[in-house]
C-alpha cells in the first residue's frame, strides 16, 4: 500500500515541486522549470554513463545552478519579464537537452540506482521538513517570502531583492536538479529525446495547487501521483478515461487557488502576491 502512495516517482516530483515553491515564493514566475528539468534529465543520463552516481549528482547540481544564475541575470539585471525569459529559455533548453543526450550518450540505457522504500519515505519527509524550516523559520526564508509579497516594501526594510531572488533560484534549482536526477536514474532508467518534457509544468501546477506551501505540497503530490500511477486500474474498474486523470492536476490547481482566493482561508494561506513583478529600483542617473 505504502509503495503505491510514495514511490520513487512521487519523490522526484516532490523535489521539483518543493524547488518550484522556494523560487515562486520569492516572486518569480518560474516557467523555465520545464526546460531545466528536461536538460537536467539529459545531463544526468549522459553523466551516469561515465561517472559514479555521487559525482554525477554534484556535476548536475552545479550545471543547473549555473543556469539558475543565467535566469537571475535576465530577471534581476536585465529586468526582463519573467514569462518571456522563461519561454525563450525553455525553447533553447529543450533543444540543448536533446542535442546533449543524442550527441554524448554512449549506450541506450544506464545502470539504475535502486532507492529502498524506507529511504524514499525518509527522504520525502526530510526534504519537505527542511523546505518548511527554510521558508518559515529562518531569516533568509522570511526574506524570500517578503520579496514575493511586496518587493518594494522589502527593499525599504534593507533587503536586496536581487540577492534574495538569486539565492532562492539557486536553492530551488538545486532541488529541481535533484528531482530530475532521481527521475531518470531511479525511476525511468532509459532516455529518449525530450524525456521528461511536461514534468516541469506538472510540478508548476502541483505547486500552485498546494498554494505554495511545502507541507500541503507533500500531500497534494502524493495524492496526484497515486491517481497518475493507477490510471490503468481506474480505467479497468471504473472506466475512467486516461485523459481525464491527466487533466486532474491542472483543473484542481486552478480550482484550489480560486477557492483560496474567495474564502477566508486566504488569510491563513498567503499566496505570493507579487508573482511575476519585475522589480526595478530607481537609481540616480549621474
Amino acid at each position: 500500500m505504502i509503495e503505491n502512495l510514495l514511490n520513487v516517482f512521487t519523490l522526484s516530483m516532490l523535489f521539483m515541486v518543493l524547488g518550484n515553491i522556494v523560487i515562486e515564493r520569492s516572486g518569480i514566475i518560474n516557467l523555465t522549470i520545464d526546460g531545466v528539468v528536461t536538460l537536467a534529465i539529459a545531463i544526468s543520463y549522459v553523466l551516469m554513463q561515465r561517472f559514479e552516481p555521487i559525482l554525477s549528482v554534484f556535476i548536475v547540481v552545479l550545471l543547473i545552478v549555473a543556469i539558475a544564475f543565467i535566469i537571475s541575470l535576465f530577471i534581476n539585471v536585465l529586468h526582463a519579464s519573467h514569462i518571456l525569459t522563461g519561454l525563450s529559455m525553455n525553447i533553447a533548453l529543450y533543444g540543448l537537452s536533446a542535442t546533449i543526450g543524442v550527441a554524448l550518450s554512449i549506450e541506450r540505457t544506464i545502470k539504475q540506482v535502486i532507492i529502498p522504500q524506507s529511504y524514499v519515505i525518509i527522504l520525502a519527509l526530510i526534504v519537505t521538513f527542511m523546505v518548511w524550516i527554510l521558508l518559515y523559520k529562518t531569516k533568509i526564508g522570511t526574506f524570500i517570502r517578503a520579496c514575493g509579497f511586496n518587493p518594494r516594501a522589502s527593499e525599504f526594510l534593507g533587503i536586496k531583492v536581487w540577492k534574495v531572488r538569486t539565492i532562492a533560484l539557486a536553492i530551488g534549482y538545486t532541488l529541481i536538479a535533484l528531482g530530475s536526477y532521481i527521475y531518470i536514474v531511479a525511476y525511468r532508467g532509459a532516455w529518449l529525446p525530450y524525456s521528461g518534457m511536461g514534468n516541469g509544468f506538472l510540478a508548476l501546477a502541483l505547486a500552485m495547487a498546494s498554494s505554495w506551501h511545502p507541507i500541503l505540497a507533500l500531500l497534494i503530490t502524493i495524492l496526484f501521483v497515486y491517481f497518475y500511477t493507477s490510471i490503468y486500474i481506474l480505467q479497468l474498474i471504473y472506466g475512467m478515461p486516461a485523459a481525464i486523470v491527466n487533466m486532474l492536476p491542472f483543473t484542481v490547481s486552478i480550482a484550489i487557488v480560486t477557492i483560496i482566493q474567495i474564502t477566508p482561508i486566504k488569510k491563513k494561506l498567503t499566496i505570493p502576491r507579487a508573482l511575476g513583478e519585475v522589480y526595478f529600483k530607481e537609481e540616480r542617473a549621474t
Partner: protein
Amino acid sequence: MIKISIVKREFPLFMSISLRIAIAILGLLIAVTTASFIFQQDLHTTLSLLTTSFLNLNVLRYVSVFLPTALGLIIAYNASLWNLGAEGQIVVGAMGATFIALFTPLGNIEYIGPATSLFFSSIVGALWAFIPIILKIYFNVNEALTTLMMNYIAYYLVDYLVYGPWRGKSVYGYPETDMIPIPCRLQRVVGYSFSLYPLLISLIFIVVIYFFLYKTRVGISIRALSTSSRAVELSGISSIKLAILAFILSGALAGFAGGTEVLVYHRKLVPGSKIGAGMGYISIMVAWLSSLNPIAAIVASYYVSTLYIFSLAIQIGSINIGDAVARIVIGAIFLLTIVSEFISKYKIVLRFEK
C-alpha cells in the same frame, strides 16, 4: 570604487527599429553558422538553404497560424494581461471547427460550412479565454499561470474526444476523427499546404486591429490599461470590461487560427499536442518580436516561419538532432530579443566614487 547602476532611458523610435533589425540579422547569422558548424556543411550551401527557405511559399502555412494568434496576443499584451494560453485556444478552436464540420448538417453546405466553422472556432477560443480573465478580475488569480494550465486541460480534452466519443469509424484505431466533409474544406494552393482565404482574412485583421488599437477610443484605452488604469476609469470606460474584451479578442483570434488548421491542414481532429505543436508558445514570442505592433507582426511572423522552414530543411541531413538544433537557435534569437529590449529601455551607468 566603481558603482554600477541601471537607469531607465527613452530610446528614439528609429534607433529601436534598427536595433530590432540588427537582432534579426544577427539571428540569421547564428542560425547559418550553427547549422553549418554542426552538420559540417560549407557556409555557401547553408546560406543558399536559408535563401530558399525565405522564398519557399510553404512559409505561409506557418504564417497563417502565427499571424492571427500573434495579433490577438498583441491586443492582450498591450493591456499588460499575460495570455499564455494561445496554445490551448488554438486547440479548442480546432475542436469547435471540427464539431461544426462533422456533427452538424452545416458541414455539408459549401461556403456556409467553412464560414460557420471558423466563426464557431473563434467563439470557442474566446470562451476558453473568458475563464481565466474572470478568475483574474474577480478573484485575483494570476492569469499567466491559469492560462498555462488551461493549455494542458485543452490538450487532454481533445485527447479524450479523439480517443473516446469522437473517434472516427474508418481510422483503423488511430486516435483521430473522420475526415471533415469536402464542402467544408478550404481549398489549398496547388502544391502547397496553405490556403489563401485565411491569409487574406488575417491581412484584413491587421488593418482592423491597427485601427482598433490606435484610432478608436476603446483601443487606446486598452493600450492605456497597463500604465494608467486609473486614468482609463476616470475617462468613463470600465477597466474590467476592457480587460475582458482584450482577453476574449485574443482568445477568438487564436481559436480562428486553430479552426483554419483543421479546415486547411489536418482536415480532421488529431490529438491536442499535434494540433498546437508548440505554435501557440512561438506566437507569444512573435508578438514580442514585433514590439506589440500589429503591422510589424506580419514581418515578425514571416521571419519566425522562415526559421521554422529552415529548421525543417536542415533536419533532412541528420534526422536525430536537426529539430533540437533549430530549437536552440530559435531560443537564442528570442533571448537576444530580450537583451535588445533591455538596451532600448535601460542604460548602465558607471560611477567612480572615492
